[in-house]
């Protein structure tokens, strides 16, 4: 007997939220607490939460530089995003050159962090950050 679509936690990516046919399994078991206004999954006691809107992604390249993505995944506005050297595996006191690789343009040398101009929502700035010798 189909009893509709239930809010369902999908663990492999996020975890994010979906609706699926109601199955009364743990991923569809939620505890609504009107005292503290939380909605917790019964399986892991985690909270239904708004995801952070501003993300920094990074990965190493073969020449000791880092590829960095400043990602505004919010649904509105435009704002600067800061990448800290310590978040991408560089010493905080080290200077590094920053290049905007979409624009194919060098932005200069920075120490400890780089703060971008405003980045529109649903948009990115992609950088190559190369520590100075």
């Amino acid at each position, binding site marked *: 007997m189909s009893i509709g679509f239930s809010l369902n936690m999908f663990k492999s990516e996020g975890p994010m*939220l979906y609706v*699926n046919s109601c199955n009364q399994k743990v991923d569809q078991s939620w505890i609504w607490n009107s005292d503290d206004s939380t909605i917790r999954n019964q399986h892991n006691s985690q909270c239904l939460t708004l995801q952070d809107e501003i993300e920094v992604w990074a990965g190493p390249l073969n020449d000791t530089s880092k590829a960095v993505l400043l990602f505004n995944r919010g649904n509105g506005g435009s704002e600067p995003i800061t990448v800290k050297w310590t978040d991408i595996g560089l010493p905080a006191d080290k200077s590094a050159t920053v290049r905007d690789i979409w624009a194919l343009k060098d932005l200069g040398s920075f120490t400890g962090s780089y703060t971008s101009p405003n980045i529109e929502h649903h948009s990115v700035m992609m950088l190559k950050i190369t520590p100075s010798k």
Partner: protein
Amino acid sequence: MSNSNRRFLVLEVGNGGMTDNEYMTHFSLWAISKAPLLIGCDVTKISPFTLATLTNREVIAVNQDTLGVQGHRVSTTVSQYSDAAGEVVVTDCLVSSSIKEPKRHEWIYDSEDRTIRSKLSGRCLSINNCDDAESARVVLSECGLNNENTKCQGKSQKWKINPVTKSIVSQMNGKW
């Protein structure tokens, strides 16, 4: 998010439905994640913007870098705009952004109109794009219950919370 769980399909750049900025975002995420860059649009009808996006040498170089190490998310913060939130996850109740602003995990359930509203922005827990299929995404969007013109008559924003069965059932397919 662990690397092993990431799934990358063919690129959607140039297929319509996204803005130019969103195509650059999509291509950037594929590039930094070392995902295969497989063009998914009709190259006989490619726009100049799409062509430029798909052929940026330095972005492709990140993808093809010989070290071959996937990039990943290294930090997250909260937007300065309180109504910018659109995605909802299930996470530790004490993540740093929730400690700073508990409203990020606080919800108001209205048992009359059946909405579940974020205390942060007042927006409604919704099935994305009125999708009535299995595994439709659930997101936060503007509440539109009282608007006759709202897609799917607001059903994508109506939920029945049942404390006994511990279920939260959508009205979307009308079977609650």
